[in-house]
Every structure is written in C-alpha cells, then in structure tokens.
C-alpha cells in the first residue's frame, strides 16, 4: 500500500502529483522530464518535497505538515537505479549482501545465496560487475534491491539500458518476479510496451502532473483526454466539431463530412453544437469498402468517407495505409487524415498496392470521443 502526494518546485519545472496503489505493480509512465524519476527519488528520501505526504503500509515517510521526512536509511525500500549503480569494487555476492549488514553472518550468507539462486545468477557470485553482461547486471541490481525484503520496490527504467531482444525476454522475467513479491512495486518507464506488460495500474505523467491514473485496462481503454490519448501512443487522434449530441449518439463534422459516434451510456458526453472535440479512431477499425459490393449496407457502410491512399507501409504480416479524405483544406495529420491497419491477405485481395482510390467506413462504436481538452 502506498499513498503519494508530492509538490516540489525546481527552476522551470514543478512536480505536483498525487496517486495511490495497493500491493500491485504501478507504472509511472510519461515522456522524459515529466517528473517520474524525481517522484521515485522523493519516495526513497533522496530528494525532499517542498510539501507532501507519503505513507507506505501505514508508516508515514513524509508529512510536511508534521515536518516528518524520514532519511533514506530509515525507509527500507528497494531501489533499482537507472544504469543499476552496482558497486564496482564489490563482487556480485557482496553487492547483493550490501543491504543485509545488520543480519547475523550465517543468515546473510543464506539470504544472499537464496536471492542469487532465485535470479539464476548463483554461478556469478564471485564476479565483479564489470565482468557481467547488461542482463546479468540488471539481475544483480534487482537482487541487491530485494535481498533485504523491502516493503516497496522502486524500479527506475529497469530495462532501458538493454538491447531490444533481451529487453523483451527480461520483461517476462521481471513481470514474474515482481508479481511474486506481492508487494507494492513502483516502476518508472517511458517505454509503452513496458508499461503495458508490467503494470497493473498506470499513472500517466506529463510535465510534472498526473493526467490520468487507474487500472491499466481502464486508462488504456478509456483515455480521459486528448493529451492522454497521445501520451499512450494512440493513433488517429483527430479533432472535429460537434453538430448534435443525444444520449446515445454524437454527430461530428470532420473534414467536411458528418460522422457519428456512440455516446457513453455511463459518462455521456454533453457538449453544445459548435464545440471542438477530439476523438480517436483505432486504425484496425477502419474498413475499406469493396468495389464489387453494390448497394448500401447500413451496418457495414456507416460513416462512409471517400479518399485516396497516399502511402503504404509494409509490416510483414500487416500493412499501414495512410489515407487522405477527399475534402478541401489540409488533412488532420499532416499529409493524411487516417492511419488504417489491414492484414496482408486483405491488402493482396483488394490490390491496394495498385488501386489507390477508396471509400472507407468506420463503425460508430469505433469512434471514441475524448472528454475535456
């Protein structure tokens, strides 16, 4: 359990965040310089917030109202630093045992051996960090952090120093390990895949603030704003103007065409006509209309838009088409309006490589209107 509220002003940057998490993996995600690492440093007592309150499992770490600021030594946290910060003059075993100094020697040796075994690096015990690969160093850093059995584990970009294939492999391992701890794990990353795969809960940071926080599926499935949608890497975040809102439908004029979206039954969107609004269209939810099908089909031909494929990008098993709607004015996303994702097979059957003029359709449920600014 962790409750965090922090305020810290630096020249040209202010951190002002509040979030909470249970015994789960909470991912602080956002661009570089958003304040994620600074948050970790405040949690560990390595940086002092100007104001705030940090409570871990009922223990008050910081409470500026009561002038409580525990030093890092008294917090008993595990911290995996970006770049690992292994002690270069100590062996792997000595690194892992570093936080076990106040235990009796026998127990210290046993615990060190256990942790090394658990991480599969028992045979490296006598080596020095400079003799290890990146992945091995990462494991040692993790071992050193978890050996004293900390109440909370903090991970600062734990995989960013590794090559892509190794990163994928270690992501799996890390997930299994941190879930097995059954503790609060706070993970900082700017890598979307890491955030998707490792976290139970997502806290999205931007410029020192939390723009959305919640269970991973909720944040990813229902972004609270255009900012969030862009932050979590959604494609086709575009803007139109509301013409009509009912309890279950929203009509929007976009690039000279009227498109229809579903209004949320739980949190209906209510904006007067004329309001500028952002919405998302998932690239895999846009369909190309086959030219050999004649006659309108009200279910499949919803939100019909004519246009041109201006570029195709091959991903091996699928293609991305950049589509420009036939309408005056400049397209929504630079040279195009929509990214469309289609499987390789569809690409071949429809012969998109040769034929560039298409009508596309989007089911109204595939248009997600983003509240707020």
């Amino acid at each position: 359990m962790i409750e965090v509220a922090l305020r810290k002003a630096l020249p040209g940057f202010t951190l002002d965040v509040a979030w909470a998490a249970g015994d789960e993996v909470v991912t602080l995600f956002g661009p570089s310089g958003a304040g994620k690492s600074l948050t970790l440093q405040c949690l560990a007592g390595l940086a002092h917030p100007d104001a705030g309150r940090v409570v871990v499992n009922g223990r008050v770490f910081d409470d500026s109202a009561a002038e409580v600021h525990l030093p890092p030594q008294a917090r008993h946290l595990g911290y995996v630093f970006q770049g690992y910060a292994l002690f270069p003059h100590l062996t792997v075993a000595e690194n892992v045992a570093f936080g076990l100094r106040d235990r009796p020697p026998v127990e210290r040796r046993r615990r060190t051996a256990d942790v090394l075994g658990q991480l599969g690096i028992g045979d490296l015990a006598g080596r020095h960090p400079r003799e290890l690969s990146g992945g091995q160093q990462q494991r040692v850093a993790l071992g050193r952090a978890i050996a004293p059995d900390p109440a909370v584990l903090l991970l600062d970009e734990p995989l960013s120093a590794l090559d892509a294939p190794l990163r994928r492999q270690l992501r799996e391992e890390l997930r299994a390990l941190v879930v097995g701890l059954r503790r609060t794990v706070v993970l900082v990353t700017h890598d979307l895949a890491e955030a998707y795969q490792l976290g139970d809960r997502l806290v999205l940071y931007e410029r020192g603030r939390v723009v959305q926080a919640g269970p991973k599926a909720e944040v990813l499935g229902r972004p609270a704003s255009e900012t969030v949608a862009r932050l979590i890497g959604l494609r086709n975040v575009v803007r139109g103007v509301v013409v009509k809102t009912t309890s279950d439908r929203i009509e929007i004029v976009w690039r000279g065409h009227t498109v229809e979206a579903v209004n949320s039954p739980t949190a209906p969107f209510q904006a007067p006509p004329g309001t500028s609004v952002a919405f998302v269209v998932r690239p895999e939810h846009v369909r190309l209309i086959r030219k050999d099908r004649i006659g309108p089909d009200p279910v499949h031909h919803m939100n019909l838009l004519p246009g041109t494929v201006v570029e195709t990008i091959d991903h091996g098993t699928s293609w991305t088409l950049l589509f420009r709607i036939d309408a005056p004015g400049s397209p929504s996303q630079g040279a195009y309006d929509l990214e469309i994702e289609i499987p390789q097979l569809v690409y071949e059957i429809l012969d998109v490589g040769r034929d560039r003029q298409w009508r596309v359709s989007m089911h109204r449920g595939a248009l997600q209107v983003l509240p707020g600014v």
Partner: protein
Amino acid sequence: MSDPIASALWLSLRVSLLATALDALIGVPLAYLLARRRFWGRQALDVLVMLPLVLPPTVTGYYLIVLLGRRGWLGGPLYGLTGWSLPFTWYAAVVAAAVMALPLLVRPARAAIESVNPDLERAAFVLGRSEWRTALEVTLPLARRGIVAGLVLAFARALGEFGATLMLAGNIPGRTTTVPLAIYTAVSTGETEEARVLVLVLTTLSCAVIVLASRLGSRL
C-alpha cells in the same frame, strides 16, 4: 657518509612521512567535504587550501609565523599556556611541509571523489548506510587511486620543501636542517662534495617515489 648528511636524510624522511600522515588525516576529509557538501564558506576554504600552490613558499612561511609564532594568533596563547612554541623545532618543519603539500593531495583526491557516480552513494543510503559508512565503504575505496596518487605527490613535495621550512623552522643543523636546506648550506659554504651526495640521494629518492606511484596506480 658523514654525520650531517645522515642526520639531514633521517630528518627529511621523518618530516616528510609525518607531514604526509598529517595531510592524509586532514586532506582526505577536506577533499570529501569540498567534493560532496555545499556549505557556507566552501569557496573560501577551497582557496585557502590551494593558496600554498601559487604563493611563494616564503610568503606561506610568513603567514605560518604570523599564525604559529611565539607572538602569533595561535602560537601566542599556546606559548602563554605551556611555555612552548613551535618555530625552530623539527615539528615546525613538519607543519610547513604539510601545509605546502596539502593542495597536492586535496586536488587529485577531490577530483577522484567527484568522479564517483553519486547514484552509488544513493544506493548505499537506500540500503541503510549512513553518509559516514557510505564514504568509508563506497566513495573512498572507489576514489583510492586519486587519493594514493595525491599522497605520493604530497610526500614528494614534503621531501623537497625549502622556503616555508626555512621561514618557520630555520636552518638549525641536526634539528631542522632537512636535505634541501643542507644542500643550500653546503653550496653556499663551498662544501661541494657534500652537496653532490645530497643532490644525488634526493634525486634517487624522488625517482623511486615516481616509480612507486605508477606501480601503485596500476595495481589498485
């Protein structure tokens, strides 16, 4: 080897070793403070420690007399209390050599401490070490090359100290006449043979120090 040569050599060794030990005691903590802490007067302290490097040694010696002499700021009260004063004892030679050699230790030691990744110290804090334990277990061991290099340089500097020693300790044969002072005396009184022996001994010793320093440096 005649008696004055042996006594000058023995005195020089004692003075240099003691001055280096004194510098290790003062200089390493000082280098750590200058490298890692921000405190009021840090800049002034930095200038004060480095000053003997650029001042003429006689000027440094003069300040030492003002500070430690029988009527000095510290030396006066000391004389009043104990009837003992520092100048013209062999301890004065130690103090003069230590002050002159201190910047040669502090500079490389400080640079070495500054180059230790601060995340290593943070990691030690998080794992329960106090700043003091962290300095002993992490920072200083990792800065050891710079510290040892500084100690060797300081020793060499102490061995060759002349001006400040002459000012504070004088040139009393058998008591404060170190090798450099003995060489000066020998040359000025026409004892060329004695001067030649001392020059050769000091040169050999200095070469040995340089070799030792590079051996130590590559082994650490």
